[in-house]
Each structure stands twice: as C-alpha cells, then as structure tokens.
C-alpha cells in the first residue's frame, strides 16, 4: 500500500507545485492522475521515487517512509519503482537491448555493470520483456532508429526489467497517435492485471481514464480536487478540475 500524506513541493524559484496532497493507493490498483498542464502531475509522480525532493509531507510504502530514506536506501527503493516517460527518455545512441538492460542496474554487481557485463539470466529476461511488447526483433538496433510507439515499448520493457511493484507513468501516450496510445495503454493494463503491479499514470484524455483506470485523482494548481471512480467525474466535477471555461471533448 502506498500512502501519500500532506505532500507539499515548493520549487527553488518559489513555485508552489503541490500543496498538502494526501491519498493512498492499494496494491494492484490502476490509478489515473488528471489535471491541467502545470497542475503538478509530473511533480507528484517524481516525488514518489524522489527524482524530485519533496519539501514536506510523507510517502509511505509498505510501512517505510520514502521521504526519510538515506541515499543508499533510496537506490534500493527505486529499483522496485519503474518509471515511464512522455518522451520515452531512452539513451538514443545506445542499443535497444542496452536500454532495456539498464533496468537491471539496481540489482546487478555494480563493478561488472560498469564494464557492460550482465548475467545471462538478465539478457534472457531482457529478450522476454521485449517479446512481451512485441519488438524482440529490434533488440540490436540503435534506440533512435525506432518509431515513437516502439520507443515507448522499449521504455515499458526497461521498467519491467526492474521487476517493479509500482509503475509511475508520466503521460506515457501524450506524444503518440490515438491508435498507438491504446496499444501502449493495453500493455500497461496487462502489466497491471497479470503481474499485479500498481500503476500510477497521469493522463490528459478522459476517455483513456474511463477505459483503463480503476480510480482517478485530479489536481488543480497543486491541490487535490477529486479522488474517486472515473465514472463520478460529471460535468460539474469536470469544471472544478479543469476550470469554468473548459469543454469536454472526450
């Protein structure tokens, strides 16, 4: 169980990105995070694996306070939290397989990994994960030779190499066309259903939220505006989340 308690983030320039956000996520849940651009979705997700240092509040996972973890402990926690990005964030000059194997860095012998040596079992696992997202044939291409949809699948494979308990997906489909968007979301759904991985996914389109999420939370200017089932988002709630002038499009 993941519990976020009174999470607040103030960036160095003074931007109040999150204000007193509290909610919790059950294991195996698929949680959508919605909100306008700049509402703090990315900040929230990045606080969970401490790519962004929270200003105050607590993030408690299986009884451990992530915000209080030391640097060494944080490495250990991070390897159980996979992350998927809007712009894929692959190392474009490296091979696909190397990008995928990078997901094991938290587990392998650090000295050997610096020499680019991974155990055979990790190699097999990497190929399996690539097969799972149907791009095993691209394994030895350079990452930047792949299309956007393929790159995002590599991103998923990399996250799955971590054998994660949680996946943080920050607008994983915002740079893809609608068809690809569904196929990527379906991979996430499979991971969520079959492997029981908790998924926290920020999304811009409500139809995707309705289609894939068990539950949704909404942020507006860094404050939690909504926490409930996607079906509960009616027109009134919608205007609360997105502002009075907003029109529903999907």
């Amino acid at each position: 169980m993941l519990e976020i308690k009174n999470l607040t983030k103030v960036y160095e320039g003074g931007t109040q990105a999150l204000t007193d956000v509290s909610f919790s996520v059950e294991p195996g849940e698929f949680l959508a995070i919605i909100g306008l651009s700049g509402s703090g979705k990315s900040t929230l997700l990045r606080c969970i694996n401490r790519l962004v240092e929270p200003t105050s509040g607590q993030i408690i996972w299986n009884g451990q306070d992530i915000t209080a973890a030391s640097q060494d402990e944080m490495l250990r926690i991070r390897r159980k939290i996979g992350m998927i990005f809007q712009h894929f964030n692959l190392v474009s000059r490296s091979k696909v397989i190397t990008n995928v194997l990078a997901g094991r860095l938290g587990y392998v012998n650090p000295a050997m990994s610096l020499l680019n040596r991974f155990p055979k079992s990790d190699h097999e696992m990497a190929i399996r994960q690539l097969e799972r997202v149907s791009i095993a044939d691209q394994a030895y291409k350079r990452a930047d030779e792949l299309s956007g949809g393929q790159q995002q699948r590599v991103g998923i494979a990399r996250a799955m190499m971590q054998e994660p308990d949680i996946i943080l997906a920050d607008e994983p489909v915002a740079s893809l066309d609608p068809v690809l968007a569904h196929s990527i979301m379906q991979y996430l759904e499979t991971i969520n259903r079959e492997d029981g991985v908790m998924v926290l996914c920020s999304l811009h389109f409500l139809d995707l939220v309705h289609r894939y999420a068990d539950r949704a939370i909404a942020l507006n200017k860094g404050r939690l505006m909504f926490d409930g089932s996607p079906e509960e988002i009616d027109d009134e709630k919608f205007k609360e989340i997105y502002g009075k002038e907003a029109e529903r499009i999907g």
Partner: protein
Amino acid sequence: MNKNKPSLKRSFGTALTVVVGIIVFAYGVKVTNVNFETTRSENRLTQLQRVIRALVRPDIIEYETVDTIIEIPFYLPCPEGQEIEVPAADTSQPYLTASEYCGSPGDLIVINGHNFTPHSRGPINFFTASGVKKQLGNFETDGDGNFELEIELPTRQPVEEAQHIQAIARLRVGSPKFTETAKVTWEKIIETVFMALLATAIGTAAAIPISFLAARNLMSENKSPLTTVAFSIVGWPVGIYLGLEIYGLVRDFLSPYTDNALYMVLGILAGTVIIYLLFKAIVKPEETQKMPHAIHTILRLILLFLAVITVIGLMIFLKSILRSAGLALMEHFEFLGFLGNFLFQVGESGYLVIPAVSALSIGGAIGSALGKIGQRISDKSPASVVKIVNLIAMPLATALLFVLVGGALDWFYQINNPVRTLYWPAGIGGAIGFILAVITGPKQPLPTGMAIYFIVRTILNGTRSVEALVMAIVFVIWVGIGPFAGSLALALHTVAALSKLYSEQVESILPGPVEAVQATGANHLQTIVYAIVPQIVSPYISFTMYRWDINVRMSTIIGFVGGGGIGFLLQQNINLLDYRAASVQMLAIAVVVALMDYISSVVRERMV
C-alpha cells in the same frame, strides 16, 4: 524642424567617435613603432630579397659534386704567322668557347661556358705554362647552364707555348640525396608530432574525469549536510598522508625483492591472484550475504584496504620489472632499443605515478568513507546530536584546512614561524568552522557539488589563461631542455582546455535519459556510464582530435623556449642566418599542420 535636433546631436556623436578613433590608432601606431620608411630603404630591400630568395629554395635535396676543370688553350701573345688550332669541344660535356684564342696582355676577351650545372658558380683562372694560377673572374651560370664573362688578360712574360684558361665547374654526380638539414628536420618533425600525441593522450585522460567535476548539471544535484562536509574535509588530507606513508612502507618492505627477476615475477603473479580473490569477495552481491549489515560493511572495508595495499605492491613490482626488462632490452638487443627505453621509462614513471595514485586513492577512499559516516550520522541521529557533532567536527576540519594552507605559505615564503603559520591559522580556522557550524542548520543540505564546481572551474580558467609557451619555461627548468618539457607543458594546457570543452558538452546532454536511468536505482557511476557517456562519446572524440591539431601547431613553436620539437631547430637556423635551412623547417611545419588539419576535420566529420 524639431527632428533636426537629435540628428545634429548624432552627427556630433559620430564626429567625436571618429576623432577618438583617430587618437586611439595614432597612439597605437606610436607604441608599436610603425615605420613605413624602413620598408622602402634600399639596404633592407636587398636583404629582404636575399632572405625571400633563400626561403623559396629550401635546402632539401643535394647532389654529390666533383670539381671539374674545363679548359681551353690560349696563346699569350698570339704566335706570329701561325694558325691557332681550336680544339673541337665535346658538346655533350661542359665546354668553354672564347671570342679569341690568343691576345696581348691587358686585352678584353669574352669567355662563354656551355652545359654547366645551372645556377652554379666557380672561378675562371689563367693557368700559365709554368703552372702558376691567376684568377681572372668568377662565372655564374644561368638556368640553362650557360654563362658569358668578359675577362682581362693578365700581364705576363711572353711565352711561346699554349697556356690555358680554366673554368672550375662544380658538377653534380649521382642521384639526388636529402641534405643533412632535411634529415634533421624529418627527425624533429616526427618528434614534434609525437610530442603533440603524448600531450593529447595525457591531457585527455586527465580531462575526462575533471570535466565531470566541472559540469554544472551533474554537480548542482550533489548536496550534503555540514556533517558530511566536515568529515570528508578531515578524511582527504589524512587519507593522502596515509597513502604516502603506506606507499613508503610497502616500498621499503619490498625493496629487497625488487632487483631479482624471479621474486618480481612471483610477486606479480601472487599479487594478481590476491587482488582477484579480494575483488571477488568485495563485490559479492549483498543478497547472498547472511551477516548483519554493519559487520559486512566493516569486513568489506578491511578487504578493500588489503586490496589497496596489494595493488600498491603489485604496481611497485611492475615498475621494477619494466625497468629491468627495458634495461636488458637496451643492453642486449640494439635494434629493440627504443622499445627497451619505452619499458624503462614507463617503469621509471612509476616513481612519480605510484605514490600519487596511492595518495589520491587512499585520500579519496578515506574522504568518502568518513563522508558516508557523516551522512549516516546526519540521516539517523536527532537534530540536536547532529548539531553537537557539527560543532566539534567542523572547527576541526576548517582548522586542519587552514593549517595546511599555512604550511603551504610557509614553504613558499619560508616564514619559519610556527606562531604565524600554525597556531594562528589553526585558531582562525577553528573559529570560522565553529561559526559555520552555529549558523547552518544541522541537517540543512549544502551545495557541496556547486562548491567543487566553482573551485574546479576557477583552477581550470586560471590554468588555461597561462600560455603553453610560458608553462614550457617552467617545465624546462624542472625536467631540462627537450621534448619532455614541451610535452608536459602541452599536456597541462590540454587538460585545462579540454576539461572546459568537455564539461560544456556534458552540460548540454539531454536530462531525460539521465533521469530515466536514475529512476531504475542506478548509482552515480552507473548513471554516468549508461546515460551520460553514450551521449558524449562522439563530441569527446571530435574535441580530442581538434586538440591534437592545436597541439601539433603549438609543439612546432614550443621549441623556441627549449621545449623540444622542430621549433628549436628553426630558431637556431634563423639565428645563424641560414635561411635555406630555416625554409625547410617552415615547409615541414606547414605540411604537417595542413595535414593534421585535414585529418582531424575528416575524422571529426565521420564522428559527428
């Protein structure tokens, strides 16, 4: 009409600018001694002509020459009533013709030479019957090997028989050969290119790690609480001191064994095996360990310490064996002498490198280990305890720093007064540390990364602003005149220049992949290797090539200050007014620089 006003103002401004400009340039002309009069002076123009003519005839190729005497018979005075036989000349060889073949003393006659070596000079002599030689003039042949010279016949006792007019021609025999100048120039240009290569290699090796320290985006994330800072400040100098001591101990312990080949080989084998075993034990993944964490950590530290000592011992053995092997090679196989010398020098460099490595690695190890302990205290203890620890540790750390600075000042200025170089710095440092510990919050993260970044940047900027030529002067004093001094100077300058270029490259990488790799739980080094290195390899290579190019240019002139390479030769020949030789060196420099320019641009194009 009002609009005229600002435009009047503007014209006035323009006029003022022009006047100021003229004044500035007039002053510039004065201080730089511009004097166009000298450029027209007759005397200087002839000198210039001479130099330029020498320069366009580089002294590269020469022929073996023999002095050949070519002569024609001559009657002085003309024999009466007798026809003079003019011998038929062999027109395939150099030969002379004359306007007259007899004459009275004091007559002017014209001598023509044919088939001589083009552009050659030589004397024209009158050779009497009694074997006395009198020089009548000098000939200088034209481009076709011909000359024409008017001579005055000598006043002599009349003689009946034929006497001779001779031309002594310098004739080329055999095939063209490189001159001594060309050979020396070739040797020196090779030396120059290798100087540049060595300097670039050493400079690059040092610049890569430094460039990470000088990259803002990497360093700005590193923040540590005061406890960590204080502990590592204490750890570093202590570690460096220990490193030097340990090196001394290991060296003394091994010294009886380092002149016996068998011991050396055994030592190297044993060392390698021990290091391998220790390494395996140290890096065993922690999942397989059943021990409690603290004991495990301490055990690992002990193993690491043993490994460091073994590595030092191994390096000492390696150094000795390289030296001995090099010496043996030089002694017994002359043709492998340069390889022997290479091995010997690599071994020899161990005397400098091993203590440095030992000091820095143990310094770094103890610095970061203490830093980690500090971090742990800061993370795990209540704020009040941390505050107390800071109040003790920080004054100690700053006092130690100040004492070290005091020691350095003592060394520079030979103050020899412990009150001023020891007690005062300790006191002031302690006080400053105490104040720092009081004013900073106990667990407040401090921008240590940025502090290191600014220090490294400042040192780099300072080093870069000193010209390599000036550095070479210092190194010449340290290691003597020669290419080694030049290489060191260029290497140092390369470190500074490349570190800056590299670090700017690091600063411009995409942050996304770095974030993604960090999110997998990768540590600092892994993040560098997996997310940063792939993004910077090709610009690094292209900058290195660019730098090699610059180093070749620099190494051609570093000889001017005694730094070896072709510059030394060039300067010497200019001082000796041997412009034809200097011309060879200038030509060589031009060719090599142009070639490097081309090669590096091709390689860079391929890489990027």
